[in-house]
């Protein structure tokens, strides 16, 4: 490499000290701060999950009482959904990468970006306060269903206020990204040259902006109900609990696409790099992100088939639900077609990407069974649902996050982790995942209801295998994190482009300088054109 140009300090060196981080307006630092918090809370969530599995290892009370069990699964859900999964890829990797991806020096509103991060921290603090004050941690489940959430004496108000603030943070991030993509693309970066990860962030950002306010008003109403006793959702006072469910799912179903679309974007970046082939159907993949965002906003009531809606509504929502499966399937087919006849090099990020495709497909197909009103009546609120959403959220978003962590690691730190250990960790994680969640499909089909701390003896086998699986997953995660942490500090140094990627970030130094580019980039080629791009070393 030529070092003729005097190297600029990278964004780690630019300034030092904790204050230079928590008041930074640099998108890379903000992204990293999200990432570290997300991972810290992921670990907390995993520990809670292990406790849940521990309780369920055998019928009867094993390590906790029913009330603690309710609190633990509520916390697990609230932490995982609102604090970990929703901000995971868009807020962390979106912030780190989006501006570099499209050739910008930063996001459109750097100070607003910092505010989003602070709101995220404050929202999280509120969620934590709800644990230790009032009359005990919330025990409603992450859905805060009324009327129970109105009348339980636990600390629901504080927790939902935390969720409100987290929602605000998410909205501002989405707003920032939309503006960034519209306004700050480098010369030559027209809409058909935007990397697919940026496209997926664009679709996600629209959902964040358009769906999250509904969550905002919903949780505010829960607070109003609890504090003022208005009765909008309380049948005794003329209110209607089903309306709560509608409002809640109008946000929360689209929210599952906030969770999955960015992960799909990550996969769309990784597959072509390691197949060394132009991605198959670029436009279809970009378009299907928007189609998912749109169609996904119309299907919320498939969570309510059994709650007493009219039959017409059930029919319509069941039909619409099937439509969302189409753009998702388009993506899966395009990834597979990209791999076909590619010169594939099996590196850690690709392993995570492939397991994403597998696990997401398993979870998505189960979604079809849940989306058909007839089968859902049997499966609703059973462990089948638990398995479904862990396959799509953990197997999808979670593995997408791990894929992103391994793929962009050398770019962020300028170093490399130990690939052999990374692959071993991946294998343990992948095996453990299926041991943990697959049995839950089976006992779900057999009728094991979710959210119970005790169960009938016939489900013992499935629960036992699943609990053992949870330990395997924990071991895999431990090895993965230790390896990453070690690589961050001690890994061998790498150059700009260890994988041979063709998107803009691979042409800037690793780690990048404060304003990302040594000179203003000019885009003349597709991000998936590998002609003339060679991996260094």
């Amino acid at each position: 490499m030529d070092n003729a140009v005097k190297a600029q300090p990278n964004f780690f060196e630019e300034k030092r000290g904790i204050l230079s981080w928590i008041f930074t307006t640099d998108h890379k630092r903000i992204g990293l701060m999200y990432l570290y918090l997300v991972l810290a809370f992921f670990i907390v969530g995993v520990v809670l999950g292990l406790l849940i599995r521990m309780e369920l290892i055998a019928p009867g009370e094993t390590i906790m009482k029913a009330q603690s069990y309710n609190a633990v699964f509520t916390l697990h859900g609230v932490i995982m959904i609102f604090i970990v999964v929703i901000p995971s890829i868009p807020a962390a990797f979106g912030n780190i990468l989006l501006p570099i991806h499209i050739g910008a020096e930063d996001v459109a509103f750097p100070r607003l970006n910092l505010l989003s991060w602070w709101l995220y921290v404050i929202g999280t603090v509120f969620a934590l306060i709800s644990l230790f004050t009032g009359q005990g941690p919330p025990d409603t489940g992450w859905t805060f269903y009324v009327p129970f959430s109105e009348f339980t004496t636990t600390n629901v108000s504080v927790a939902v206020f935390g969720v409100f603030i987290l929602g605000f943070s998410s909205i501002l991030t989405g707003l920032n990204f939309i503006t960034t993509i519209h306004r700050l693309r480098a010369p030559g970066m027209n809409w058909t040259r935007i990397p697919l990860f940026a496209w997926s962030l664009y679709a996600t950002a629209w959902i964040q902006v358009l769906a999250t306010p509904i969550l905002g008003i919903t949780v505010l109403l829960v607070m109003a109900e609890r504090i003022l006793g208005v009765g909008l959702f309380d049948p005794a006072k003329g209110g209607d609990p089903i309306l709560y469910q509608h409002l809640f799912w109008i946000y929360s179903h689209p929210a599952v696409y906030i969770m999955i679309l960015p992960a799909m974007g990550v996969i769309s970046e990784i597959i072509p790099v390691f197949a060394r082939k132009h991605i198959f159907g670029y436009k279809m993949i970009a378009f299907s992100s928007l189609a998912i965002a749109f169609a996904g906003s119309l299907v919320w009531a498939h969570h309510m088939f059994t709650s007493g809606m009219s039959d017409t509504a059930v029919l319509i929502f069941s039909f619409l639900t099937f439509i969302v499966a189409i753009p998702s399937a388009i993506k899966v087919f395009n990834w597979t077609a990209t791999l076909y006849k590619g010169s594939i090099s099996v590196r850690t990020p690709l392993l995570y990407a492939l397991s994403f495709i597998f696990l997401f497909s398993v979870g998505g197909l189960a979604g079809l069974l849940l989306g058909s009103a007839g089968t859902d009546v049997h499966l609703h609120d059973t462990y089948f649902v638990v398995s479904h959403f862990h396959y799509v959220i953990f197997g999808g978003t979670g593995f997408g996050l791990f894929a992103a962590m391994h793929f962009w690691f050398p770019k962020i730190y300028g170093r490399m982790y130990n690939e052999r250990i990374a692959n071993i960790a991946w294998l343990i994680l992948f095996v453990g995942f299926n041991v943990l969640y697959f049995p839950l499909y089976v006992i779900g089909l057999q009728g094991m209801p979710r959210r119970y701390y005790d169960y009938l003896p016939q489900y013992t086998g499935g629960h036992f295998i699943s609990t053992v699986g949870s330990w395997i997953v924990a071991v895999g995660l431990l090895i993965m994190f230790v390896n990453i942490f070690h690589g961050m500090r001690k890994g061998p140094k790498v150059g700009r482009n260890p994988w041979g990627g063709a998107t803009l970030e691979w042409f800037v130094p690793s780690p990048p300088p404060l304003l990302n580019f040594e000179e203003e980039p000019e885009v003349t080629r597709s991000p998936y054109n590998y002609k003339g791009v060679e991996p260094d070393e």
Partner: protein
Amino acid sequence: MSNIHKDYEGAKLGMWLFLFTEILLFGGMFLLYAIYLAKFPSEFHKGGDELDVVIGGVNTVVLLISSFFVAISITAIRLGNKKACLRYVYITIACSLIFLVNKFFEWKAKFSHGIYPDSEHLKELSQGENIFYGLYFLMTGLHGLHVIIGAVVLGFAVYFIQRDKINKEDFVFLENGGLYWHLVDLIWIFLFPLFYLVL
């Protein structure tokens, strides 16, 4: 080196997106209103009769006037007329205070009749009336909160104008504050007929 830059179009785009989110926030409430109106039409009618059209009407006029003044304050700053601009923003803020005072008296009268969320009196009335008043307090309350936020934003605008941070060349803060104020006005334009007139 700095990564903070000025982009007029970007700032406007961001503000419009934010306004969408505000509309959707209220949209959730309007949705509830529509559904409960369909469920309890005659109770809503009865509740609507009880509200004071005069106070509501005065407040509507006050907000419309304020919207006018915030709009011409932007024209004034574009022409470089700082003094006029400040004067118009002051009038806008004064209007917001009049609005809030009016609202205070309106609510106070209701409270003194024993009408407030979860009151004994409401429990004696029908379920539909309880829901009507519940929505009335929540929606006008949420709107009132937005009036306060808007006034605070305009207060900041005053501060920036005085310090010439908002000036002939760079007035996007005032413009966005004005947009926000128009939204607050617009939402009231919907709330007013829904609660005071059509029923």
